Structures are given as C-alpha cells and as structure tokens.
C-alpha cells in the first residue's frame, strides 16, 4: 500500500514540475519582452555617455522569416498566417492557449491537441510516429546492451587480470571515450564506402512495394548502424560496472562461506554472486528510461534517423513552438517517470533503503 502512496505522491509532485518545465520551454521559444526606452551608459569617443536605448528581449529566430522574405506572399497572407499561428497575441495568452488545448476533452475522452507544426502536420500524430521510432531504436539498444554487457562483465570478473580481461577493460575505456557522433560518422562512411549497410532513414525507397517479411528485414537493416553506434558507450560502461560489482561480491564473506561449505563453483558464482552483483545495476534501468527519448539526438541527426531528437532539433531551429513544446513535455515526463522508477527500484534491490525515506524526500 505504501507503494501506491509513494507513487501517487511523486506523480502529484511531478505535475507542478512539468508545468514549470513547459513555462520555461515556452519562454525560451516565445520570449518577447519590451522594456521600452532606457538610458544606458555606452562607450563613445573614449568617454562614457548616457544613451537612450530601446531594450527589447526577443527570440532572435523569426518563425515567419521565410514567409516575410518570400516575394510571392502578400502582406495579407502574412498577417493571416500570423493570426492562425497565434503569433499576434501576447506571450501569456499564447501559453495559456497552448496549455488549454493540451487538456482538450472530446466526448469525455482526453484528446490532447498539440496544435499544428509550421508545415501544417498535426503535432500529436507526428509525435507518435517520431517517438515510436526513437523508442524502437532505444529499446533495442538497451536490450542488446544488457544482454551483451552483463555476460562480458561476469567474464571479466571471473577471469580477473587475464589477457582477455585486460583487453576488455581497454576496449571499455576506448568505448566510453569515443564520442557517439564521431563513431556515427566513421561507421557511416565505412558503410557507404564498402556498401555494407544502408545509411540514413528507417526504410528504403521501395519499402512500400516489398512483401511484409522483406519490409521487416529492410527496417532491421536500417536499424543496425544506429543501434551499433548507440550501444558502444553503454556497453562499455555497463560491462565495467558489472565487472566491478562482481569483483566486490566475490570477495564477500558469504561467498567464501558458500565455497567453504562445498557448493560447486558454478552455483556459487551464478546463484549467489552474480545475482547480488546485478542488483545495484537494476536502478540504472530507471535512468535509461529517462534518457529513452532524448538520449540519441546527435546520432539521429547524423544518420538521418526519423526519430524524436531529429524532429525536435529541426523545430528548435525554426522556433516551431508547438513541436518543441510537445516533445519537451513528453521527454520531461519520461525523465520524471524514469527517476521515480529508479528510486522505487532502489528500494526493491536494496532493502536497507526504505520507502518511507524516499517518501520524505518527496
């Protein structure tokens, strides 16, 4: 029961946090503060003079710059577009309008209306596709990382200071230091040069014409490169942690005890030691959930993967407020949820940390 209370309490706390996040996001996108004319000291001709300066803080990116500079667009069209996007309203009105649309209820069903993007698509529909792609990518990455890193970590700990262990440790240091965007570049070039794998996108041009089993194969082939790139860093650090944890556990007294009472070695290792060593890593899952949507932005950019990161990046550059806000709130929600999950998992794996202590933290 305490579980439920803690979860509810944390989620309630999350609401004002998310509201604040959305306000910050909207402010960054749309801030337009006109302070009027003020006397400001300025350096001129070697002396300080007081100048009348118009102080106006405004997002320097004009979302309608393209229309403004297009000679085919008449001023009337420009104005109507400005009105359609709500850009003629004051800042707070724009925000409240955005917020109220988010909680739109049709026929008793919550249907979030996240507005339209600049290119006219429904943001919610687009977001579902993009976030889905990113989730697909990152879930595969997490799954494979854990499946590969844990056995490698166990191997490294059991063969402590052997040549293979040293090699794995070296590879782990290299993998942790390699910047994902550089790895992505290098691997993409290699793949293009030797025609190993398709680079960019999630599907081939002829995807729609293929039978379903080839469609799956097509998507899988496109996923290989981003998955490999994103796995490298996580693989290295998880292997290192698993190895370190297991080394610690193997020195513990109850392991010595298990050996002393004549338990076969494989039972000592796999039944007692490994299970204990994995426990602290489980909390990492929560943090991985938190980074699920926003962690792969650079790689998505380089490999032109149609995910949420790439979508958001392009929207930020155009100050496409509806898109930026939607993806910001979505990934912030996931981040908060991930942190709650990490805390809860912590109590599951480590009974010394009590739920009530976490509850006190809020």
């Amino acid at each position, binding site marked *: 029961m305490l579980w439920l209370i803690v979860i509810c309490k944390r989620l309630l706390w999350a609401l*004002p*946090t*998310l509201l*604040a*996040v959305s306000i*910050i*996001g909207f402010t*960054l*996108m749309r801030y337009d503060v006109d302070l009027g004319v003020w006397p400001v000291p300025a350096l001129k001709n070697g002396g300080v003079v007081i100048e009348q300066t118009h102080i106006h803080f405004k*997002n*320097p*990116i004009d979302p309608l710059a393209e229309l403004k500079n297009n000679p085919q667009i008449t001023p009337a069209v420009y104005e109507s577009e400005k009105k359609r996007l709500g850009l003629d309203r004051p800042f707070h009105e724009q925000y409240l309008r955005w917020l109220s649309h988010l909680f739109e209820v049709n026929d008793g069903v919550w249907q979030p209306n996240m507005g339209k993007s600049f290119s006219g698509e429904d943001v919610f529909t687009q977001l579902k596709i993009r976030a889905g792609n990113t989730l697909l990518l990152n879930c595969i990455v997490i799954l494979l990382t854990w499946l590969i890193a844990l056995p490698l970590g166990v191997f490294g700990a059991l063969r402590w200071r052997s040549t293979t262990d040293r090699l794995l440790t070296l590879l782990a*240091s*290299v993998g*942790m*230091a*390699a*910047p994902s*965007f*550089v790895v992505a*570049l*290098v691997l*993409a*070039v290699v793949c*293009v*040069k030797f025609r190993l794998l398709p*680079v960019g996108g999630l599907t081939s041009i002829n995807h729609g014409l293929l039978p379903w089993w080839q469609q799956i194969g097509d998507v899988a082939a496109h996923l290989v490169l981003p998955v490999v790139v994103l796995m490298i860093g996580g693989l290295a650090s998880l292997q290192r942690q698993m190895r*370190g944890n297991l080394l610690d556990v193997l020195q513990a007294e109850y392991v010595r005890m298990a050996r002393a009472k004549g338990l076969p070695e494989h039972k000592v290792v796999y039944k007692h030691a490994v299970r204990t060593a994995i426990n602290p890593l489980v909390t990492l899952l929560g943090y991985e959930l938190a*980074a699920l*949507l*926003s*962690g792969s*932005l*650079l790689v998505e*950019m*380089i490999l032109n993967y149609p995910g949420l*990161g790439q979508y*958001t*990046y392009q929207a*930020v*550059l155009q*100050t496409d407020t509806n898109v*930026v806000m939607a*993806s*910001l709130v979505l*990934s*912030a929600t996931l*981040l*908060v949820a991930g942190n709650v999950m990490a805390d809860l998992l912590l109590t599951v794996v480590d009974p010394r940390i009590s739920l009530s202590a976490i509850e006190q933290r*809020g």
Partner: protein
Amino acid sequence: MADLSNSVNTAALQQGGWLGALKRILSDPAASAALWVLIILYAAIALAGFLAPYGQYWRDRTLAGAPPTPVYMRTVETGALTWPYVLPQQRHFNPTTLSYHYSEDTAHPIPIRFFVRGDEYPLLGLFNTNVHLFGVDNTKQDGAQINLLGTDMNGRDIFSRLLYGGQISLTIGFISLLVAFPLGLLYGGISGYFGGWVDTLMMRVSEVLMSIPSLYLLITLAAIIPASVSSSQRFALVVVSLALIGWAGFSRIIRGMVLSIKQQEYVDAARALGKPSLGIITQHVLPQTFSFVVVAITLSVPGYILMESGLSFLGLGIQQPDASWGNMLKEAQTLTNVLYAPWMLAPGALIFVAVLAFNVLGDAVRDYLDPKTA
C-alpha cells in the same frame, strides 16, 4: 558519482600533501601516460600560433580538400638522402565525373624551413611575432604548402586549425566548470544548511531544471543566441549555457553532503559563536566537500568537452570561421566530403584522445581518493 559522495576519503589528500597525492596517482602507468598526453595537448594549444604553419583564418581556395602533404626525404632523381622537402600540389578537375584530384609537381621541390616568417600572432598573449616553427616558402611556386593533415573544403589548413580549435575545445569545459561548480556549491550549501522550506523550494527549482532533457535545453539555449554577437561574446554565452545544464545535478549532491556535515559539532560551535550563516557555509561546511569536488571536476571535464563539441558540431556552438573541434567536424556531416577527404575526421580523433585521457586520469584520482570503489 552520487554514491561516491559519502565515502570520499577527505583525509587522503591532507596526509601526503599535494605532491604526495600526485606521486601516488602517477604510480599508475595509465594515469601518468594520460597526464603526459594532456600536458602535450595543452602545451600545443598554448603555443598554437608558433606550432601552426598557418593562421586560423588563412585559406587558399585553389587547394580545397587537398590531401595531407607528403614530406620527402629522398631526391626524386637519385633517391639519395636530402633535406626534407615537399612538392607543390596541383588541383585537377574532371568535368565528366565532376570530381577532382591532386597531383604533385616533381620539378619544383620546396625545402621545409624552420623558424619561417608568416602570419602574425600573439605568442602566449605576451607579444606579437610572426615566427613559425616550420613552414615552406610559398612565394616562388603556386601550390607550395605544407598541410600535415590536408585542407578542408575551404582550403584551410586542418593541422593549424586543430591547434587553434583546441584553444576553445579544451578550455571551454574548464571555464564552464568554473561557472557551474561555485554556483552548485553555494546553492547546494545554502539549501542543505538551512533545510526546511528553503531546502524544499530550492530543490524543487533545481528539479525543474533537471527535468528538462539536457541536450534539448542546450540546443534551445544555443539556438536563441543572436547571430549578431561577436565571437568572444558567443564563447561566453556557450559557456553560460553549458554551465546552466550542469550545476543543478551537482548542487543536489552537495546538498546531500551538507545535510550530514551540518550535524557535526564544530558547526554547532561556529553557530554558537555567532558566526553568520553564509560564513559557516562557505568557510566550515563546504570545504568538507573538497575531495568530492576534485573528483567530480576531473570526471566532469570530458562531459563538458563532449557537450561543446556536440553543440558546435550541430552548428549551434562556436561559429565559423573560428575553429573548434566540433565545428571542424561539421563539414564531415556531408558523407561525400568524408569519402573524398577522410582527413577531415582528424578533430574527432583528437576529441577522443582528450576525453580518453581525462577519463583515465579521473579514474585514477577517484581510486586514490576513494579506494573503496576501485
């Protein structure tokens, strides 16, 4: 990092003094190799103007995308040993395949000269000079250049720009830390020391910042830097954006440490003596977090270097024509560029080396201060 805060061995640093600590850390061969790599990198960027044969903005459009200039030690005719020389490069464009290639003009070997005069630069910020460590005389022959790592698509010397770019990429992390860490220390210190509603409120605020995915916040902040700012202003604003991302998480850890430190008796004593709270926080409480801060700094620098290069790589950080390792890689985003000129990936290799060195050194420092997690 979080689990480290409780167990960091504060006494370790004070026992042997700084020199003893350094000696112990460097007894690990990997750590001392890492330190040497970093010393060489920082010395190279400090002497960038002297070591680089060309200036950061220097360019020759007729030699765009030229491969690394080979340095020859034997004469063309006889193969006898001679003073190192380079051959002038000539660019040929093939109008049917729309591709270009370079050939060497073997008739005009150009000897490499040391301490040649070239572009003027301030040496160590002290005085202006135009002496460069090495270079070639490019007045007599067209295409006579020495590009150790080739040129980019604008015909700029990559080797020289790597050195100048390092001045930004390798320092921006430290400068951001200098902004983020004092802020986080003070914020976490105040929050933890006062407790109660002050603590709740302050931690809520930092929680809000931490609830925004850091890369999203970073690109949003960087995107709204006006295009009109000068390059030094942009540098400062990038530093502030990076610092804004980092301080919140750090302040939470400090706050946790302060919560336990403030219960010690000497803090009570200071309070009983009537010392103002801010003085207690800065003079008695925060110094106790010292070794954790040292470890956190060494472990955070690579993250900041990566963030800056990622940001510049996206085109939102340091802007052309100023060089930084990230924005030099931006050209490599076009895969065809890299296919024809793989030497454009050189900055990526340097980022990797610098981050690796910082990681190895950071691990060694942590192992020293906190043997438990070793």
